[in-house]
């Protein structure tokens, strides 16, 4: 257990409302039978004294793509970084409320942060390969998680690179430095690195923010393939992208969840006036 791993972060003081199985909020008819992968109940998140997220309830469904949209600074990145406890790295932050992964509270005192991070992978805004070779980048996650068998390791590196649709382009130079790849390739490498440790959920934090349109399209295609096997959460400020790739969309504004529902419905008949204004470009 890596209990004392991040001493800066104050733990949630009380085991706020362990009411699972909790009532799903805003549940629409077509989601009733869906398996919930991540359950978020009544959370508030603070940086120091300022509240970044306020009273959010939400479900992330298994094998679906959930998009978070909203103007910049609305808290969408902060929100998904809670799912793999990445915010623990930031000093003076506090979380109230409950977040469950497969019905288990990931912020409970017995939770193994390191294992949670393996199960909930993350792809960052800016491609962040290590200054190592392509192979080493992908193998890194396997090694730190205790896989030493060389054959198994190689097989899974190749497999992951194939899954990330990168293998064909780089198969002759997997021992070259990852920093020599193009931005789009680097981002797919980061996806491969994430896939290698076999996560259940993958968080994408604006994965295309620094990419050109062609690379962006490749990543979007990849997302659609990946949802067959993974639960995907993607933060994007690009509404078209959300519409293209996601099954569910959440609209956040000023740290609040304004609307959450099936993408098609949310984009065509938003229930909330603010959502409508945002979608039609009236603000943001």
């Amino acid at each position, binding site marked *: 257990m*890596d209990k004392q791993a991040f001493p800066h972060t104050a733990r949630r003081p009380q085991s706020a409302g362990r009411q699972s199985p909790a009532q799903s909020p805003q549940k629409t008819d077509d989601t009733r039978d869906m398996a919930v992968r991540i359950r978020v109940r009544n959370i508030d998140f603070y940086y120091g004294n300022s509240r970044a997220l306020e009273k959010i309830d939400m479900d992330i469904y298994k094998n679906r793509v959930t998009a978070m949209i909203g103007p910049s600074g609305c808290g969408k990145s902060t929100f998904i970084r809670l799912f793999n406890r990445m915010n623990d790295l930031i000093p003076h932050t506090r979380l109230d409320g409950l977040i469950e992964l497969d019905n288990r509270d990931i912020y409970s005192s017995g939770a193994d942060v390191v294992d949670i991070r393996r199960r909930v*992978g993350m792809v960052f805004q800016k491609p962040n390969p290590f200054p190592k070779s392509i192979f080493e980048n992908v193998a890194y996650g396997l090694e730190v998680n205790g896989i030493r068998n060389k054959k198994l390791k190689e097989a899974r590196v190749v497999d992951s690179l194939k899954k990330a649709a990168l293998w064909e382009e780089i198969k002759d130079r997997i021992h070259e430095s990852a920093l020599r790849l193009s931005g789009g390739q680097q981002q797919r490498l*980061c996806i491969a690195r994430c896939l290698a440790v076999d996560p259940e959920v993958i968080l994408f934090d604006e994965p295309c923010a620094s990419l050109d349109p062609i690379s962006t399209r490749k990543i979007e295609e990849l997302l659609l393939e990946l949802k067959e096997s993974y639960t995907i959460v993607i933060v994007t400020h690009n509404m078209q992208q959300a519409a293209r790739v996601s099954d569910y969309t959440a609209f956040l504004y000023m740290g609040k969840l304004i609307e959450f529902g099936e993408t098609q419905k949310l984009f065509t008949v938003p229930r909330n006036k603010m959502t409508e204004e945002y979608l039609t470009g009236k603000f943001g």
Partner: protein
Amino acid sequence: MNRERLYRWIFTALAFSSLFFLVGITVVLFKEGLPVFREVGLFEFLGGKSWYPTYEPPDFGIRPLILGSLWVTVGALFVCVPLGVGTALYLNELAGPRQRAVLKPIVEVLAGIPSIVYGFFGMVLVAPFIQDLFNIPVGQTAFTGSLLLGVMATPTVASIAEDSLSFVPKSFREASFAVGANRWQTLTRVVIPAAGSGISTAIILGMSRAVGETMTVLMVCGGAAVIPDSFFEPVRPMTATIAAEMGETVMGSAHYHALFAIGLILFLITLVFNVVAEIISRRYRLKLGLGR
């Protein structure tokens, strides 16, 4: 604007002072050091096994002195690398803001203590302690010198290594944590390799400091100009030789020139260390994409 141009000229001239002094030191060392080679050949000087500058005829073999410097410097590395790098890692990775606020000034104070005080401390406390501990005839040995030099070089290593650790982009750590590495794995497999050249620079500069240190080794190494058999015997590093003997020489004598030649060798050694450190740190910044 004539005055403006005048000021510019003055500042330009003054700015080159360090270059001027550096060149001056080089010239002086060569001019005063080279004449010794009229008395003794270069290889005999560097490789000669005995240093008896005041005998008749004198022996100017500085191999024992070079070995003395080498021994204490290598010994110091065994102290300052773990302590310095360990302290830097602790400050950068584990210490909270409050601990940092206490520890960083401590490191600074340690760096500010004059070498004569270390030497004095070594002479009155550390050397007798080591003499008793290992039950050896004298406490002033290469080991004692290494120990003190190591502690003296620790702040240098710690502060430069800490700088280079803080340059490691946050995204590297995040990427490592995101695939389920724990903190130690992230530290040893991502952060340290990324800061590797910075840490090597720190170690080289620490070594450079240890090689050039004078008063401490003069006081605690025992001062015997013989080739040592073990770490627990007295040695006489190059710096100590210069400091101890310059006062007794006749200006312009062969001994005098020999001491300058030793100074020249010391100067060249530290110059090489600094240049290597500079090259490594420049490469390191390129590698991390930090520009020049």
